[in-house]
């Protein structure tokens, strides 16, 4: 049996390396993990240690990615619920404070996970048993809510009824188009053998890079925002109620998304945020950090629950290829690692947020975005070849639609949700027939 101290060491190593990589804008931990999996045998890292290392990656990513999200993402009016408050703070010179607020939410969730880990052992197995037979309609329920709950973002001005209708429906129509196109693309990638079998494990990776990362980089390139000097704060603008509400909402939304397949943290955040009427900006930012941590780390943490073999989230899917933890010792080491790793990641976050925050006004966003774009294109080509690159390009077109037309970027997630729902309800064949393809 592996030594718990060594397992913990691998978690902390994963936190440090994951944190370093997470600062790179548009680079997702799910894109980097396959490289570690390929390298592990060469480096002599056993499957067990690798999985704990990946846990550390996820912890570091969940915490540190806030820096690239808050500092480097394109200002995007449509993502108000997720981004706008932080963008506002960035423009006000309070970007460092925004990052720390998000980090605080993440840290609280890290400690919550450790504290409730014994309860998870009792709660998770029956919960999974309940969810599995009902998965198809749960996923469809969330998917349709995301689609139908978007509101027109016009200002109500127009010379005629038809003009007002067009103005109001511009973002809605773009959202529906995004949903349909992303769903079709996802369906083809998942069922249509479009990627060579040898790179299938990357699955939707090129598509997701196209949906989210590349459009952000493109908009950054063109927007080239002027970021003012960022103030180093000694306190955070949040009351205890804000911290409680934000952490609570983030934990709930992220945990819900972590347990249900194909549902992401963003969707969980929207549902819970709307259910509890969350509007205040600092609560939002705290809940964003909490949600992100609960979703990414929580979904991977489920893999460690002995006896149930729950595989949720991209990292768990990758890790399960090599090793699925099954011992109680491993579960508790993971819980301890989340708490300790979370604290270490938070400290790294503080130092990095201040360090990079100081340099923000000097950063040329267009150059940075260009460099990262080249890197990402190379990564996609290296991992998935020319077909993957083609998928990325088409997905970029789709991912730009919500950004340019003021719609929800979450609609791109129909690339997973739609094929999954169709498959689970036995309708995939019929959908393929409508598209005129044989799967």
């Amino acid at each position: 049996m592996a030594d718990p101290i060594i397992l913990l060491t691998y978690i902390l190593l994963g936190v440090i390396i994951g944190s370093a990589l997470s600062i790179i804008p548009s680079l997702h931990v799910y894109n980097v993990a396959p490289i570690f999996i390929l390298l592990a045998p060469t480096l002599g890292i056993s499957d067990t240690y690798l999985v704990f290392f990946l846990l550390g990656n996820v912890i570091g990513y969940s915490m540190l990615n806030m820096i690239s999200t808050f500092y480097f993402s394109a200002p995007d009016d449509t993502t108000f619920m997720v981004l706008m408050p932080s963008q506002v703070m960035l423009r006000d010179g309070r970007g460092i404070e925004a990052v720390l607020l998000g980090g605080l939410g993440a840290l609280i969730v890290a400690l919550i996970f450790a504290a409730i880990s014994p309860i998870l052992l009792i709660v998770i197995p029956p919960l999974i048993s309940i969810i599995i037979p009902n998965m198809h309609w749960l996923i469809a329920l969330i998917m349709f809510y995301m689609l139908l709950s978007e509101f027109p973002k016009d200002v109500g001005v127009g010379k005629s009824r038809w003009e007002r209708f067009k103005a109001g429906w511009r973002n809605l129509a773009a959202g529906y188009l995004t949903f349909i196109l992303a769903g079709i693309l996802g369906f083809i990638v998942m069922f249509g053998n479009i990627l060579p079998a040898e790179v299938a494990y990357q699955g939707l990776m090129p598509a997701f890079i196209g949906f989210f990362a590349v459009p952000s980089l493109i908009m950054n390139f063109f927007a080239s925002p002027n970021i003012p000097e960022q103030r180093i704060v000694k306190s955070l603008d949040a009351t205890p109620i804000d911290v409680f509400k934000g952490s609570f909402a983030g934990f709930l939304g992220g945990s819900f998304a972590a347990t249900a397949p194909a549902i992401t943290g963003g969707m969980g955040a929207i549902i819970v945020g709307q259910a509890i009427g969350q509007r205040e900006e600092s609560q939002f930012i705290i809940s964003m950090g909490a949600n992100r941590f609960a979703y990414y780390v929580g979904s991977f943490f489920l893999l460690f629950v002995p006896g149930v073999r729950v595989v949720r989230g991209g990292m768990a899917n990758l890790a399960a290829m090599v090793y699925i933890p099954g011992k109680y010792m491993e579960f508790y080491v993971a819980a301890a690692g989340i708490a300790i790793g979370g604290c270490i990641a938070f400290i790294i976050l503080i130092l990095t947020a201040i360090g990079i925050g100081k340099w923000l006004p000097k950063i040329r966003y267009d150059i940075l975005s260009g460099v990262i774009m080249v890197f990402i294109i190379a990564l996609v080509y290296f991992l998935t070849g020319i077909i993957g690159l083609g998928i990325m390009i088409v997905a970029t077109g789709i991912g730009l639609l919500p950004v340019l037309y003021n719609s929800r970027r979450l609609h791109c997630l129909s690339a997973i949700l739609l094929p999954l729902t169709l498959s689970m309800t036995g309708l995939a064949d019929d959908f393929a027939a409508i598209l005129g393809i044989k799967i």
Partner: protein
Amino acid sequence: MSNDASVRNENREKGFCPSCGRYIGAADICPYCGARVHKRIDMKYIKALALIVAIVGTILFVVGTSYISPPSIKISQINQQMNYARVKLSGTVISSSTFNEDSESLSFTISDGTKNELFDIDSIRVTVYSPTSKELVQMGKLPVSGDSVEIVGQIKIRETPYIIVSYSDDVIIHRDTPQEVNFDQIINSWQDYLGSAVIIDGWISEYVDYGDYAICSLRDYNYPDNDLSLYIPQPAKTLTGALANFFVGDLVRVIGNLWEYNNQPEIVPWNASSILIIEKLQLWTLSEVMSNQELYTSQRRIVKLNLTLVEPPYYSSSGAGVSLNVSDSSVGLTKYLKVWIWARVWDDIPDDIKENITLGRTLLVVGELQEYAGTLELIIDAANWILGVY
């Protein structure tokens, strides 16, 4: 509102309409006054490009997909990068389909003769979930050992790989027209028929019911020491309708695959209608048995007799079993037959039947004729071979 160009430019840069001055954000046309806003990079072109790439690109991928079929691979080629790949695999089923009622999933295992060194496997499990699994059951499309199959499914790797099939069309079973074989052919060269579809007749010499499956033996009385194993898998036993109501001693015709188990030949029927009763075991008389004792004992013939106990049951001192001295009216109760019931069989007999096995009672039994130390014996090999006590 100033018309000064520099102010207008400044307004344009900050997101304000250069005409009416209101804040319009990233809009190309002011929603308030309708003025066109020309930016440093006209977003109109980027929007158009995005739409074209998105729609045309998706259509191209849809069209392209219809020309792509899943690649054919071998088990030896599977590696971790193939997780989630949709592939075609051809091979032979080495473990018949089983349907799990709780998870409503169907599984079977196939092998294609290659070995995967990475995962140290030479076969792969194929799993089908509901509703496709139920569709396959309804269609009777349930592979059994020895079937040659082609499947298309998604590779999933969880420590070891398995394949998930999502559509009933993606399971293709190849079964040739079965050829008639006899026991002589099987005994001498069963490996030549391995994986082939065969028709074989024989008498059931053993039947053990395990619920979802059953294990039987088929006998040709010309080759009494070369019983052929008959494995009735779940598809034949419970999933494709009612199995013919055969019992030990019946002459049956089995249509299925000749497969192997523990390096011995085994016949695996395809479905419930693959076992046909040619002739049910008729009631014999003791005089018929005794008149051809040598032949029938050499054949290890299975017979059904109505026998009356002429002595109380005798429990052997070694505890090996119980012997019954019986006779019937065909020999005027003057000649006796020894019925031997092994101890393990005796223990399995229900108490209410055991209690009635007493002097003077008549038993309807099925048994195998053997000779032991020159004496004719009827061996009862299972508790349910005692069909009744009167």
